């Protein structure tokens, strides 16, 4: 009875849900359960720092994964994926030359405009360093446009530290890196022990000039924000990168909803002052 523009809908469906193939060109073990993947795409992602992609293996499933490389216009996508469930287990079995499905980039990002001319504090807990890296890289690239740049990176134990070599490089490049573990568990460790909140009270920072970017496990935020608040860092200048369960990445499936907002679209990067009225955010 009807004439429909089927092709129009096919295009919409492809735009929304169809992954593009990403060929794995490099794999490296970062820890026992975290693996680094460098993927070459057919077309550049054109992402911004803090955004994520939906990664899939057809027949297994799809999951949101942060983009770890800084923005750029090449076809590269770098990710660190933790082996934790159905899909990530299969991804860990992939080899160089295999492909995975990539769609995105999705979500909000850290806008560098808000960081220029300020002291920048990064606080990363565990895997949180992965998305923050996509911001740290461009910040370091133009280090002279910022004030003091500090990174507090914490993880459970020395064996779980991510990007160790990169942290060394960054230190050499002049970034102040505070490396912490919750507990050494009798492993060799030349850096500090304690939670990521511990160094905050003693940090040399100018609260009025500081902007902070946070990413880590759900329990981390409350404490870090309280510590920053105690240092009079304005909520306007604290950015958080949140994690939620996501099934579509395009603001429909409902899993990532935080009160009235959808984390996949309104987030995952938020200015903390925008979250103040959302009791479920932290």
């Amino acid at each position, binding site marked *: *009875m*009807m004439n*429909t523009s*089927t092709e129009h*809908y*096919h*295009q*919409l*469906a*492809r*735009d*929304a*849900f*169809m*992954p593009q*193939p990403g060929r794995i060109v490099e794999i490296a073990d970062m820890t026992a359960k975290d693996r680094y993947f460098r993927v070459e795409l057919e077309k550049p992602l054109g992402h911004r720092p803090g955004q994520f992609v939906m990664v*899939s293996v*057809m*027949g*297994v*499933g*799809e*999951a949101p994964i942060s983009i770890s490389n800084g923005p750029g216009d090449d076809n590269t996508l770098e990710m660190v994926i933790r082996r*934790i*469930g159905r899909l*990530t287990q299969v991804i860990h079995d992939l080899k160089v030359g*295999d*492909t995975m*499905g990539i769609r995105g980039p999705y979500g909000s990002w850290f806008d560098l405009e808000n960081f220029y001319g300020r002291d920048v504090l990064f606080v990363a807990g565990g895997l949180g360093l992965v998305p923050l890296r996509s911001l740290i890289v461009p910040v370091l690239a133009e280090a002279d446009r910022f004030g003091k740049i500090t990174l507090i990176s914490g993880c459970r134990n020395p064996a779980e530290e991510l990007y160790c070599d990169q942290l060394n490089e960054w230190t050499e490049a002049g970034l102040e890196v505070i490396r912490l573990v919750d507990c050494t568990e009798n492993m060799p460790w030349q850096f500090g022990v304690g939670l990521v909140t511990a160094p905050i009270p003693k940090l040399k920072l100018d609260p009025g000039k500081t902007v902070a970017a946070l990413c880590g*496990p*759900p329990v981390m935020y409350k404490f870090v924000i309280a510590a920053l608040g105690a240092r009079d860092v304005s909520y306007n200048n604290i950015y958080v990168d949140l*994690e*939620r*369960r996501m*099934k*579509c990445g*395009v*603001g*429909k*499936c*409902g*899993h990532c*909803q*935080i*009160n*009235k*907002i959808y984390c996949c*679209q309104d987030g995952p990067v938020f200015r903390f002052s925008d979250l103040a009225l959302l*009791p*479920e955010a932290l």
Partner: protein
Amino acid sequence: MSYYLATKKELIDWIQRLAAENQLYFPEKHGEASYRFNRVGPKSEIQFDRYIPTVVPPVKLLVPAREELLRFRTDAEGKTEVQPSLDTSFRVIAGVRSCDLKGISLMDLFFKDGVPDAYYLARRENTAIIGYSCNTPCDESAFCAAVDSLDHTEGADVYVTPVKEGDLLVEVKTSLGEKLTAGVDWKKCEDPEARRIGAVTARPEPFGRSFPAPLPDTMKIVADKYQSAVWEKHVKRCFSCGTCNLVCPTCYCFDVVDDLNLDAASGNRSRSWDGCMLPHFAEVSGGHNFRAEPAARQRHRVNRKFTYLPEKYEHGAVCVGCGRCGRQCTSHIDIFDIVTDLIQEGSR
């Protein structure tokens, strides 16, 4: 826009004629007191008399319980071809009550927003809707008048209002509606507005249940009562079974799962209904659950209807008052009672 006056028999004959040529769905009795939108076949009975809202709303024809999104096949060289699986077959849904019509209008809003949902929109564009107005409340669970959905007619291609015994006012509202009614020999109606007002004013007053506060106030109270003992009160009886989500005409959350065929080279990705009352809905891998407590989930569901989505879409209440969730809740926890309790909590 055309207006007719048809008799019940004329209308039924017309529906049966449409059903013979199209996939047409109509509420059919099943079980002891329930209804289901079933495909009308030659043997089906069309009963325009009273039926309570179906177990599952007609939205199921636009967002099926399980729907394939993509289909894939990997060839011998390891190259994977992926194709969207779209359903663009034409269908007619008839006998859609105002509450469900409003549900569909809201779904239109949700699925068009942001990244448009091809699957929904393709079905929607190929679906004709014949609405049917209520003159009396369908049962004691409904509260459509309280949430402004009793007179919702938008979204229907043809809208039918019983105006007086035996006479039905048929409003043809869209060009698709014109196509559906092409060739009918019903009496033209000259004074549709007067007739409709007549039908409306003849309704009982109040029409079904109503909240103890006007709707805008009600919505504000729900928003303000984020901390309230009411959230704990009702969930004592809650099984977290998700029924209230799955039967709601404005719930559309979904899960996505892949299935591989046994050839290990082809398969599909599909989505299926999900619900925020289900315990693991907001759990992330690794085990942290952002709404681990039933009360938090209950609050989220109610707020989604009265606060969150209304704010996001700048719309009135997103609950259409069909009463399904209360009627079908295994423990008879009724969203109307929850909201009423919230309103009354402070005023006591």
